[in-house]
Structures are given as C-alpha cells and as structure tokens.
C-alpha cells in the first residue's frame, strides 16, 4: 500500500476567459489531494506578479509549475523562467500542437525556444483543447502528470 502525500502545483496561463479553464483544472486537482494555485486567484494582489513569481518558484516548496503558453504574458513567463536552473526542473510547458517544434510547422522564435528547452530539460507538451486531433487536452496532461508526480513523491522517488 502506498501512503498518500500532497503536492503543490502552480497553474500559469492566460487571463480573461481562459482563467476559467485553469479554475476547472485546479478544482479537479484539489479533488485528488493536490494544492493547485492560480496566481490571479490565490496570491495577494499587494505585490505585482512579475515581482513575486520568480522568487516563489525558486525558493518555495512548490513541486511543479505548469505554464500553458497561450498569451503574450505566459510566453514572457516561459521565456523568463525556461533557463533558470532552479526553476526549469519544475517547469511543465504546454503549447498548442501547431507551435510544438516536433509536431507543428511553426518556425517562430518561441517554437525554437521550446526546442532548446526540450533538448536541455524536456517537458514541453503539445495539446489540443478543441479535440480536433489526437493530441490530449491541456487538462488531461496536467492531471495525468500531477497525479503521477504525487505517487512518485509518495514513493520517495522525487
């Protein structure tokens, strides 16, 4: 029998309407005994997010940080954190499959940066939330990885 443990994950992504998607995922993670933080909802607005995120990811007890790169803001966050050796191992990057360097055809700077990140750290996942292809949804990726990570933590393997 494996004992239960709790992990802490942070969900980064676009604001506006897209935040609803993150809230639904966070709720499902919580039902699985995982603390899922959404900066816009959970972090005190007294300090600007750009000033606190780097500090939090470097020094806190956060286990995983999921970045769904779906806006200029989240692309900037990825660019900021992707090569920081204290943050990158915690990063799990999600991108629409057309922008993934191995599955899509995009020649953009960001796609090129994903390739660099894959070569160095791995963990760049292609998704399709419209379910028009065989790629998993972002929700499925986040839930599957978080739950497996939780088991690994319970077994003392991470």
């Amino acid at each position, binding site marked *: 029998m494996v004992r239960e*443990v709790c992990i802490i994950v942070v969900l980064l992504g676009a604001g506006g309407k897209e935040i609803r998607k993150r809230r639904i995922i966070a709720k499902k993670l919580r*039902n699985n005994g995982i603390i899922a933080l959404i900066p816009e909802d959970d972090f*005190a*607005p007294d*300090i600007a997010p750009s000033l606190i995120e780097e500090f939090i990811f470097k020094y806190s007890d956060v286990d995983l940080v999921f970045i769904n790169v779906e806006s200029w803001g989240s692309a900037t966050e990825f660019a900021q954190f992707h090569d920081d050796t204290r943050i990158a191992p915690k990063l799990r990057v999600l991108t629409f499959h057309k922008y993934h360097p191995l599955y899509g055809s995009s020649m953009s700077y960001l796609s090129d940066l994903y390739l660099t990140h894959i070569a160095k750290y791995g963990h760049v996942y292609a998704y399709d939330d419209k379910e028009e292809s065989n790629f998993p949804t972002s929700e499925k990726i986040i839930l599957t990885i978080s739950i497996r990570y939780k088991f690994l933590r319970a077994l003392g393997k991470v």
Partner: protein
Amino acid sequence: MEEARKMLTIYRALDNDSRLKILYTILNEPDIAFNDIARKTEIDKPALAYHLGVLKNVGLVEMEYQKRSKKLTKYRVTEQGKEILKKLNIVVEPVKPS
C-alpha cells in the same frame, strides 16, 4: 476519500514553519493587512504572498479587499480554519510582538 484528501492538503499547508507563524499572526489579529503581517512575521513580501496563497487555497484563511483599493488586502482565519485548528489542537498561545 475526498474528505481525507482535503485534510491531506491542509496538513501539507500546515507543514511549514512560515505558514504556521502567519496563521498564528492572523488568528491573533483578525482583519490584519498584508503589510502588517509582513512586518509582524518578518517574512519577505513575495514569500508571504505565496504562503498566504497556500493557506487561502486550502480554506484556512480568507482575504478581503479594503475599500477603494484592490491592492490593499486584509486577512482572517475562516470558521472552517478555526475548527480545523481546534481539532488538530494547534491553537496555541498568542504570538509575542516582535
């Protein structure tokens, strides 16, 4: 099972000295402002924002915006939080002012 998992998230939230210190501070002074928590606990503001986020996320504390500004927040321990702390027998003596 769901209840057990919820308790697990609460244990994880409480398994941190800084978060316990923050929780005691809020418990002793309901509706305390963010900056005052930072001053009393001597915890850096970015770290404080994160720890408060964890405590809020698991339902131990709640946050309220002060009037006229969305950048000034005050915190209090939730009723659920008080019950849980009582159950866990960790409502202890007040934190001495630093």
